[in-house]
């Protein structure tokens, strides 16, 4: 049955490429750059440049115009042999359709949050969701511990359980102002506003220069950038 569906998808994708449709394509294509520009902080030319990056990443393993998890890992770590709880978490947050692959629209919408001009509330929200492993709407002590342990393991370091517990104790002392053993969105927001460096990974300066780094040769764009 799945072979049937895959075959059908393959035929469709080939058909679309055959006819080079300008109208809204399946997630394997650029889609509607003007719509994306309206709904993200990117300009149309930035969307087109971003698409060049997307094409590069999505063709690394399977050239199907979609980013699978392996291609994502490859792009991030320059090796696909690196398993990472955090890369998985980021991928899952990008994958708003929850189908295990990233289309360009998902890619662009997620990266929009990382733009230097994106609203800080979006960044605070996204980072909260990153840490909220079980997606319960709050960050539990157990989740923090899991992430600390994973971070140390991924970096090849180990610390005694005692030390790890003391790090988390200190963190919760500061962050968990309601003293309920978990960090909710409000507490997270307050913590982040006090420690802005916690959001440093939520801004990618590279996105500001993306039209220079990834020049796009799409000539049908007639929209004037403001």
């Amino acid at each position: 049955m799945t072979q049937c569906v895959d075959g059908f998808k393959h035929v469709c994708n080939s058909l679309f490429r055959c006819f080079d449709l300008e109208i809204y394509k399946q997630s394997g294509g650029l889609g509607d750059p003007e719509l994306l520009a309206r709904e993200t902080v990117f300009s149309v030319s930035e969307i087109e440049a971003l698409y060049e990056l997307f094409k590069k990443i999505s063709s690394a393993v399977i050239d199907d115009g979609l980013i699978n998890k392996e291609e994502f890992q490859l792009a991030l770590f320059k090796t696909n042999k690196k398993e990472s709880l955090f890369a998985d978490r980021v991928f899952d947050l990008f994958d708003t359709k929850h189908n295990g692959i990233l289309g360009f629209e998902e890619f662009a919408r997620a990266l929009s949050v990382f733009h230097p001009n994106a609203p800080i509330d979006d960044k605070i929200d996204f980072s909260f969701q990153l840490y909220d492993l079980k997606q319960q709407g709050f960050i539990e002590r157990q989740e923090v511990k899991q992430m600390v342990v994973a971070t140390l393991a991924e970096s090849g370091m180990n610390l005694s359980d005692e030390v790890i517990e003391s790090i988390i104790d200190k963190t919760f002392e500061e962050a968990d102002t309601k003293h309920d053993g978990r960090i909710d969105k409000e507490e997270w927001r307050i913590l982040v506003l006090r420690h802005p460096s916690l959001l440093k990974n939520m801004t990618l300066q590279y996105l500001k220069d993306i039209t220079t780094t990834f020049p796009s040769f799409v000539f049908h764009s007639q929209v004037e950038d403001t």
Partner: protein
Amino acid sequence: MENSWFQKGFKKIEEPKSPDSMIESLMSDVHAAFAVQPMCYTAFDLISSLAQGFDLSGLFEKEERSGSMFTTKKEAKEIVSKFEEIATSSERFDLKKINVGVIKMEDRREGRKGQVAIEVEIFEVTESFNMVEFKKSGGDTMEYKQFCDRELKPSSKDIVWKWQGN
């Protein structure tokens, strides 16, 4: 010598001493003059600094980045001593404290774009676990990179536990 930081605890040297003992007395003067109190680090700081998966700049970079952050089991005092040592043996860099947990190494010489300056920040995660981050705060990037690759990184090996990204 005019810097008051230097004068505190300073004993005027009457006869020439051996270089080693001069460095020793210099070190103790520096420690007496200031203590670097490391900044406190939450679990989230630790995760966001070390977890490569959370850092998407890899999507834009062509090669693996050379690290400018490392973890260490040494105390802040030893970390500062190590950077003092590096500064002294470079015979061109001076070390000074600029803030809590932040020290600066500045080249006495003028480079292509002014004096190369490096800011080193120490973050305390626990008493026996610190994070050290350094970055260029002045001067030409190539010259900064050269100094890092040729002197700073090799010389700091004995205090480094793990480099970020390795």
